[in-house]
Every structure is written in C-alpha cells, then in structure tokens.
C-alpha cells in the first residue's frame, strides 16, 4: 500500500462527516423527534388550531383535508390537535413511571446489594414475586380498585415497574462493591452511606441511565396499551392509546387510529435511538459493536 493509499484509507475511514453521522446520526434524529414531542406537549395550544375537546358531531369522521390535516374523529374533534395534546399524557406517564420506578428500584436494589444477607434475599424474592404476576391482571385489578385515571394507571404500572431497576441496580452495585476504590474508601474510614450514595451509585448510574432512556419508550408503549384497553385516561383527555382504541373499529376511517399510532411509534423509536446513543457513549466497548 503506497503512502497515498494509506492516506486514502485513513481518510475514508475517518471521513469526519460519515464518522459523525454514523456515531451521532441516529441518536440525533431520535433526539429531534423527542424534542418535537416535547415542544408539542408544551406548545400544544399554540400549535393546534382547534380545541382538542371541541365536539362537532356534524363534522365527524372527516378525512384529512386542509381544514383538518389529520381528519376528525367520531365526535368531530380534530385528530391533529388531539395527537399534539396527546403527547402531554404520554410523556408525563412515561417519565413519571420510569423515573419514580428507577429511583425507587435503584435505592432498594442498591441497599440490598450493599447490605447483602437477609435484606438482599428478601428483596430478590419480592422482585421475583412481582415478576411472576400476570401484568394485565395486576394492572386491571389495581385500576379497578383505584378507579380509572392517569394517576392510578401510573401507580399500577409502578407496582410492576421497579423490580427490574432493583435487579439492575443490585447487579451493578455488586460489581462496584468489589472494586478496589470501595475498599480504599473503607480503609480511609468513610461511612457506609457515604460510600453507597456518594461513591458506588454514581458509578453504577451509567447503565441505569441507558436503561431509563430505553425504558421511557417502553413505558409509553405500556401506558398506551393499558389506555387502549380502557384503563388509561378519563375521557375526553386526548391520549394516543385511547385514540387508537376509539378508531380501532373504523377501518374505513383509517386516519382516526393510524395517526396516534404513528405518534407512539415515533416517540418510542426516538427514545430507543437516544438510548442506544447514550449507551454507545457511556460504554465505548459497546460502541465497537
């Protein structure tokens, strides 16, 4: 290979644009989608030209036109406005389930792994127990017991959500626990709480952040699913899963179900892209893959 060829090979390999695109392209695209939905959630009143709850049965089930870009639903409400407003519930539900679940699970899992012994055993059995529940029955039972509504559905989801974080945090803390820097901290005389919360958990947080990001999409999916089954929101709150459910029978009026579904798909894909990106960024080993 001549010197020139080496340069070419090097240039081809490291073409900054390609490299940049390969590394940041998808996460960036995902980030843009998520940003868009965040903007929609915040600016829904500005972005939509109709009140999402405005019932106009005379104009029901209009196909997409210039007046109603995504058509109208069975009560004559503007689908576009409802899809835009729908991002609020989905994002709120996704974030609250995942963040609360993650914090709760991480603290529990972290303490269990750090303390070992009985506490760990107990926690692991508890997570096993939650994991072997039929999730639908549990969610429905809780929704039925508490009543239908966004908050209650989020609570129902939280009940089954935290164990995976407890498990992940446990395994991460177990790994960190045996690291020499933890031993060093002990030798220096630091207390357990300091070591666990100031030293161990910050080091275990990377994979947790990746999981949280990937999980946000998942939580939005599950929430939409429960909503689809009628356990999510109280009408007339615009919510994507419920909107798909409303349009489920309307095969001819495909726009009623299709657009909210696309909204779910896009936001979930967005979180997946970003999550993959964060994982690559936090774990250079994975980037090679």
């Amino acid at each position, binding site marked *: 290979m001549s010197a020139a*060829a080496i340069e070419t*090979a*090097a240039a081809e*390999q490291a073409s900054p644009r390609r490299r940049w695109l390969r590394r940041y392209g998808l996460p960036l695209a995902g980030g843009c989608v998520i940003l868009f939905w965040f903007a929609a959630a915040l600016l829904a009143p500005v972005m939509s030209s109709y009140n999402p709850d405005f019932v106009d049965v005379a104009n029901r089930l209009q196909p997409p036109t210039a007046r109603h870009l995504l058509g109208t639903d069975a009560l004559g409400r503007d689908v576009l406005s409802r899809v835009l407003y729908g991002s609020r519930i989905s994002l709120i539900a996704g974030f609250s389930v995942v963040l609360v679940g993650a914090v709760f699970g991480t603290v529990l899992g972290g303490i269990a792994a750090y303390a070992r012994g009985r506490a760990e055993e107990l926690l692991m059995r508890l997570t096993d127990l939650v994991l072997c529940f039929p999730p639908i029955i549990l969610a429905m039972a809780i929704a039925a017991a508490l009543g239908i509504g966004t908050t209650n559905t989020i609570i129902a989801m939280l009940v089954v959500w935290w164990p995976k974080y407890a498990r992940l945090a446990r395994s991460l803390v177990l790994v960190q626990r045996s690291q*020499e820097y933890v031993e060093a901290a002990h*030798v*220096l*005389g630091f*207390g357990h709480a300091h070591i666990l919360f100031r030293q161990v958990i910050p*080091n275990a947080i990377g994979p947790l952040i990746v999981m949280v990001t990937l999980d946000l999409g998942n939580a939005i999916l599950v929430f939409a699913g429960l909503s689809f089954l009628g356990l999510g929101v109280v009408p007339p709150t615009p919510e994507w899963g419920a909107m798909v459910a409303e349009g489920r029978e309307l095969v001819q009026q495909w726009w009623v179900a299709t657009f909210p579904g696309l909204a779910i798909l896009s936001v979930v894909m967005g979180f997946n892209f970003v999550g993959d990106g964060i994982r690559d960024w936090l774990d250079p080993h994975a980037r090679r893959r």
Partner: protein
Amino acid sequence: MTDAQPILEVEDLRTYFFSDSGVVRAVDGVSFHVNAGETLGIVGESGSGKSITAKSVIRLIDEPGRIVSGRIAFRGRNVVTMDAARLRKFRGGEVAMVFQDPMTSLNPVLRIARQLVETMVAHGRFTKKAALRRAVDLLGRMGINAPKRAVDSYPHEFSGGMRQRVMLAMGFSNEPTLLIADEPTTALDVTIQAQILDLLRELNADFGTAIILISHDLGVIANICSRIVVMYAGEVVEEGPAESLLADPRHPYTWALLNAVPRLDRHTPGEKKLITIEGTPPDPADWPAGCRFRARCPFAIEACAEHPALTAIAPGRAARCWVTQRGGALPKVGGGATAAPAQPAAAARAGVSYAAATAASATRGEVLLDVRDVKKHFPLPKTTFFGERRVLHAVDGVDLAVFKGETVGLVGESGCGKSTLGRLIVRLHEPTAGQIAYGGVDITHADPATIRPLRRRLQMIFQDPYASLNPRMTVDEILGWPLKLHGMTQDGAETSARVRELLDVVGLSAQAAGRFPHEFSGGQRQRISIARALAVSPEFIVADEPISALDVNIQAQIINLLIDLQRRFALTYLFIAHDLAVVRHVSDRIVVLYLGKVMEVAPAAALFDMPLHPYTKSLISAAPIPDAAIERRRERVRLTGEPPSAIDVPSGCRFRTRCPIAAERCAAEMPPLAENRPGHWVACHFPGKL
C-alpha cells in the same frame, strides 16, 4: 543450528489501525527472521507492537487494523497475499499460536476433545477417530494427568496452567513448523510458569518446532530463547543472540529494561534505587521524528534527531542506535556476585513459638502490628438448598509481627491468602479467629467508630490502578475528601494546598488535581493511589501488589517512589507481591505464605541466600533471571502439580502434596513455625534438607 534456514522472514512489516481518531501505526517497519527450530524472543513494553507483529504474521488483525505494507515470507510464500483457503491451511497447519490468557482462549461451552479434534480434522491430516486418539496422546505428552478423562472435560474444569497445556497440545497437534506464543505464562504463577517454560523447551527440542515467544519479561525470554528481538514504538530496536544481548545491551532501551528490574541473583545492600527512564512510550498515532527513544534516552546525542536504521553492529547483532553504532558503550550496572550461601543451623530452637518470640523481642523496636493466629474463612454459597456449606480457608492461622520502620515482604502464589491477610490487617475483612493488634490496640473485632481514628495511621495501596480510583471523582476529591473526613484540614484553601503538596510528593504536577483518573496512565494512577494513602499521614501502609499491573520501567519508578517515601515519612510497609526479586529488593524481612499458612519467615538476604523451606526454595528457583547464561546454568527445584484448593486443604503440612521431600510424618502433623537460626523461622519437618 549452523545450517538453519530461515522459515519466516518478515520484511518491513507495517500494520496500521485506521481508527476514528486517526491512523495508529502500531507496527511500523518491522523486519526479522526465524530459523527452523529456533527459539526467538520478542520483548518490549506494552504498546511496543510486539503482539500486533505476531498477529500480523498469521494475519489475525482485527478491524480496523490492516497490514499496509511489507512482506511476510513463510518458506518463501508471502502470507500477506495468500488467498483465504491457503491462509486457512497456513494457520493451524503450519503455524500455531498460543495466546496470553488461557482462561479465555478455550471455548467454554465445547469439550476439550472437540476443540482438539477439530483442529486436526480441519487440516485433513487425521480422521476424527485418529485425531481423538492423538488428542489423548498429546494431552499426556503435555503433562496432563488422566488425559482420557481430560479430553471429555470442559475448559472450566481446568486451572490456568492446565488450560495452557491444552492450548499447547492444540498448537502442536498438526506438528507446525512454527509456534507463536504470545505472553503464554504472564497470567500464571511463577511455579506454573516454570513448568510451562520447561514444556516449551522440551517441545522445541522434541518436535523441532521453531518458537516465537513474546514477552515483557526478560527473564522468561532468557530462559528459553536463543535469539532476542527488542521492540520499541513499533520498531525493532535491537536484535541479537540472547546471551550477548542480555549481557551487553547495545540499545539504551534494552539497557533500561534490563536495569529497571531488580534481580534475584544480584543484590547490592544499601543501594535500593533502581535505574529508571523517565516518561512514557510515545503515541503510536504520532511517532516522534528522529530516534523514537530519544526523549527518554539518558545517552541521547545530537545525531538522535535523525531516525536511526537497524544496523549490524556485530556478527548476528543489530541495533537501532546512533550512540552504539558510533562505538559508544552503555554503562554496566550492578553485577555484584551472590553471597556464599550460609549453612543451616544444626537444629531449630524447638519449643519457642514465633508469637512468643516476637513478643519477647524488644530489640528490634516497637511492634506496630501484631497478628496472632488469625484466621479468615469464607463460607461459599450453598450448591444445594439442604447441602452442607463449604468453607474457603483463605487465611488459616497466621502469626505476624511488623516492627516500626521496617518493610515486611509477603510472598506466595495466587490463592495463598496474602491479599486476604492484607485486608484483614486493615480490617476490610473481620477475622474469623485470632487477634490483630495495631499499635497496642486490639482491632480484631473493632466497630467502625473505634477503628476510624486508627484509619489515619493504617493505610493500604491497591493492586489495580484502574479499579482502585473512583472514576467519577477528580483527583482533588480523591485526595481531599479523606482530609475533610478526618478533619485534617479546616477549609477549602487548606485542603487544596495539602492536595497540591501530596501530588508533589508523589511526583505529579498540581494541574493533576482537576482531572479524572482516566486521564492518567497506569503509573500515574498508582501515584495518585499512593498519594491518597499518604493523605491521612499514616505510619503503616499495606501495599497489595502495588506494581504487578505495571510495565517494568514504571514498576521501577513506583518502587523507587515507595522507597523514597519510606525514608521521608518513616513509613512501615507490609509489601505484598508475587515477584520474588521485587520483594527481595524492597523488604527487610520476608514472610512466605502457602495455602493460608506461614511457611518461612526470614530477613531478606537470609531467605534468598539460604532458603530452608522446600517451598521457598522452589519459588526462588522457578523465578527466571534475565541473563541467558545464568538461566542455562541454573539448577532448579521443579514443583509438580498445582496448589491444592483452599476448600479442601491437605492434612498435616499443607505443602506435602507437592513437596519433593515429603515424608510420612508430613501428612500426619503440621510442622510448627520454629526458629531455625536467629530471626529465621521455618515451618518444615526437614528444614534445609532440599
């Protein structure tokens, strides 16, 4: 060997890695040859390109690496341009390779038999049946007991040494012309290493297979190789026959490598400073112009601004150095002859226990640490719900006294309990039995509150410079937090002043304070680790293998630093290591541990001059010395087998299962640790008999 034909000729090999951050010129113009039946050693620090060179020879370069130029002629055929089918025949058929880590080199889910057989069958030399028979033969030849059973085992059922034997069996299965062994013994204990090196030598002699041995350890190279290639910064810097090259290095880098390691056979009392070279190897993405060693070279002259060629300087010898090419000589260092071995005392002073003796001995100063019959047993997870819980006897009754101001070396093979003992002393573990007193205070079961004030006096340095620093904390926090915890500084300004002071003490600049550990090299991290231990101004430091993860030159720097600090701050060390030469170099007294028990305690010189315990003797004899002439002459005590498991310890003397002089008595009773000569204690029924 006079009529030897080169079977492998590497000419101007360049292997580059086209990474995202630029072109890494890992191998940058390497030429050498291997003659039939020859043993060639390639030596160099990590990053010198020696492993990439070896992998390039069989074109096993991972993406994004590429051989960009050069010729690799194997028996006249160019490997670089071989087609896939031919290359497959070449790999494994004509050239075999053994990798560094035997634990990961065997596929964990496939039986040994399958992995051996497929190698033979793939090259069409054997039928499946014949291959299986041969596999059994080969394993037997490699020194594996019950090879018939062994072929049906999975890799995890073997120890590291055994796996490396399996790898060798695999390598030799097609009777290759050349075997490339990439650091084959680095992951192994010294006694096992000696076994594998012996095996390699035998195989070389029996099969006539040429061997390329890649190692960072000049001792290992000296042990086997007839010729040595020294690599630095992607280039060959020196080449020549082992004996003359090691005795009379002609490249400053070789010279530095040789002098950075303390030698077992050479000890200059009093002078403890090792000769080190400053700085770190250059960046392979951006080699410096001129001689690549110039920046670190103590002998650099003006001519070194120009890149020197590898030039013949004597028959069979070549060096890439302007200094030696122009007739300059590199100074000889050390070389003091070994003292005459002393004679063992006729009889041990029976009846006096080691512990009692230390208590009585006030002559040596204040006893800082007093460990009495301490035990640490780790219960293992139950394999079955109702099953009996098995126990790992990591430390099983150890007495140890450390006097103020001395350095006690703690040696033994992996798994002997030396690290556990270190952790017991700093109370990372709580002892199962026995007592530990520090400065007269019993800390055996002390609670955290009681022990906290003592933490300031008793510190530890850890082995892994990567794991021992919290990656999320800046150096400032790593050093500052302990100061605040112990109230040693009053405010932020004082803390940062003290942090700067500490960094200065360990030879780091003040700018280091704001950075994170990953921004430092291994050696620098170990300095930070040392600074952290020093932060609370301790008097006693347990150093747990503080240098074993480092390159030789960095090792020397750290050893020098530790010795320097000891002098400056009147520190007391418990120095844990597996490298006997290093232990000998730094220690005043040495404790030899085997399977959780003390085998021998003696002043450093006495221990090496006249080891009384057969285990000590075999350890010393297994450690290679970077001098081919000496290596060839040395008579060795060879240990067979591997250390037994600490779960089922042998009865009586723990060493008896591997001891060449074990008698019936040894199985019946554990010999007590008894003083054989003043200050020289040994736990053996037949001290000095071997």
